[in-house]
């Protein structure tokens, strides 16, 4: 039985290997908002403007540096590109109740979501935090980056400007 099951899966994947390059979309996964409400990722939307999904955690220094760095000029980013940023915290129930005080304490204007059991992290093949995705008007992932270096916010803004204009990202 197990072998048949595995075989079926392998056949499914084999079907997918005859593939053309086309961007990925965000899979539908149940998350929570900071006030405990259910939220499904199919509701990640921004009226055809660019979207950033950034995985982070309260214990992750580089993640906080990145999101605080963006936060300094986020008003300008929104004016220039219309971007909406979803900050997905992978903190589990040890730290998830500290997410809201931290986020508000920092004054982040992001939509913060809780992925307490790493379901979205797994579905989007994220190995480690930070991991940042950029989505275009069609909700397709056009760019991703899985580490933070000092000053990398500039690169992200450049990508967002291109996405806002509907240009292709290489």
């Amino acid at each position, binding site marked *: 039985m197990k072998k048949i099951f595995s075989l079926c899966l392998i056949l499914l994947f084999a079907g997918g290997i005859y593939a053309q390059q086309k961007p990925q979309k965000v899979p539908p996964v149940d998350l929570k908002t900071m006030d405990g409400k259910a939220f499904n990722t199919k509701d990640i939307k921004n009226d055809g403007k660019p979207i950033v999904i950034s995985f982070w955690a309260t214990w992750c220094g580089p993640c906080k540096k990145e999101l605080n760095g963006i936060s300094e000029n986020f008003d300008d980013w929104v004016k220039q590109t219309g971007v909406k940023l979803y900050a997905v915290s992978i903190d589990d*129930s040890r730290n998830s109740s500290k997410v809201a005080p931290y986020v508000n*304490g920092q004054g982040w204007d992001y939509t913060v979501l809780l992925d307490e059991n790493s379901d979205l992290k797994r579905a989007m093949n994220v190995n480690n935090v*930070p991991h940042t995705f950029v989505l275009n008007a069609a909700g397709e992932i056009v760019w991703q980056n899985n580490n933070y270096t000092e000053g990398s916010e500039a690169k992200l803004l450049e990508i967002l400007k291109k996405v806002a204009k509907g240009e292709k990202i290489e």
Partner: protein
Amino acid sequence: MIAQNSGTNLGEIHGNFQMDMQYYNPDSTIKAPPVPEKTGMNGFLNLNYTRDKFSAGLRYESYLSALQGFDPRYKGSGILYRYVSYTSDELQVTVGSFYEQFGNGLILRAYEDRGLGYDNALEGLRVKLHPYKGIYIKGVYGLQRSFMTYGPGTVRGVDAEINFNELFEKLTNKKTNVILGGGFVSKFQADAGTGAYIVPQNVGAWAERLNIHRGKVNIQAEYAYKINDPSFTNGYIYKPGEALFVSASYSQKGFGFSLSGKRIDNMDFRSDRSASLNNLEINYLPCLTRQYTYSMLTFYPDATQNTGEIGYQAEMTYKIKKGTLLGGEYGANVLINFATVSGLDTNRLNPASDSARKGYSNKSYFGFGQKYFEDFNIEIDKKLSQHCKLIAIYSYQTYNKAVLQGEPSDHTIYSQIGVADIVYRFTDTLSIRFELEHLYTKQDMGAWASGLVEFTVAPKWFVAASDQWNYGNADPTARIHYYNGTIGYIRKTNRYQISYGKQRAGIYCVGGVCRTVPASNGLTLTLISSF
């Protein structure tokens, strides 16, 4: 990638890959055990396939043999995780392996942390229902993963949640949000009749939770109860189990405060009554202490005692405005945190008169017994100039080694730790980072000094070198250096990394990413990819 064939959507495949390989140096100074095969390797590949409402996935894992520090029961290779799932607006069905959490996880949490070698995935069936607005129901039925195989006990559970503001139209726009939830989990394991006691074959546990949110205030509480469940970890006693977890927070722009408390009483819950350590745990009882990623701050780490503990935590964050005396030109962030954990206040019952075999009784329900762990810490994050940022942390920790490491002869360790993390950016692509840490204690191994220098050429290269020196050890021959050097290359979502030296296990944030790493001694090769 998306599979497309003359206009027919065949779906998308994505995945990720990770491999860590180590070559071990024989080393007697740090009492490293000899490794006859000289190398160890952990690797895995995840594949996820999605097409419309349908998804499937698998993970191939290899432990040839498992890295030092991992449970040796991780042995060999195979596909231990595979699933097929169908999702619509009101229904999701998953067959195969899955991860799940009810509430805070007090009665059920199946999860994984590959870096720690933790994986208690359920193997069976899961149904999620969203029958009406504001109502969410989940049901699970399966066996638990135990390293390369599955445990003997069946786990069955159901969880429901009602969001009143979504359910009743009248409440939709009210300021106060109320969410009520509850779950029931039962495990079955046959009693072989070979043990000294007659044990329950079915053990049930239930939990109820409440979440109230109004404006800047959020309050959350969960209480769980488990019937008598004699097991190896509780010494085969028949006392029922309990867990209580509460938290309240207030936050506004520039200020946040949270207070949380917990009480755990005989709440170790496993699908095999003879299992121990990280094996076949059904529930998750979180620590209520600050989680760190700097090595000296995690030298003496807290760990939840599932058999019983009580504690609380308070945390405040404050943003000092730009242009003020303390804030300077760029402002600053301050975080103050205090957490304490003790054993329960109990009376051990005399086995001769304890005919019901309850083990112990509670003297006072919310009483604090012997101290297990305490941490007072303060952190300041400050941008010093356009090019330079500083994070400074001071922490005073109390660590009951006897309880937390199970070594009855040892004493309590009091330590003071200071950390400075400084980044200086030369240009848009060149930066240097220093991590300076010091741990002072009179007990155990004495004082440690630790330093790390990391040079980054964004976005592709980084080089780091570190040393941890146990200079304060009472035994001069034990004043050892733990040197480590790392070079990493990043291209898009691929990361290649080589390290050489000795490193303790923990979460390390090097090269702009945080990962859980095992202890190492020798050469380590790492390859990580996401596609």
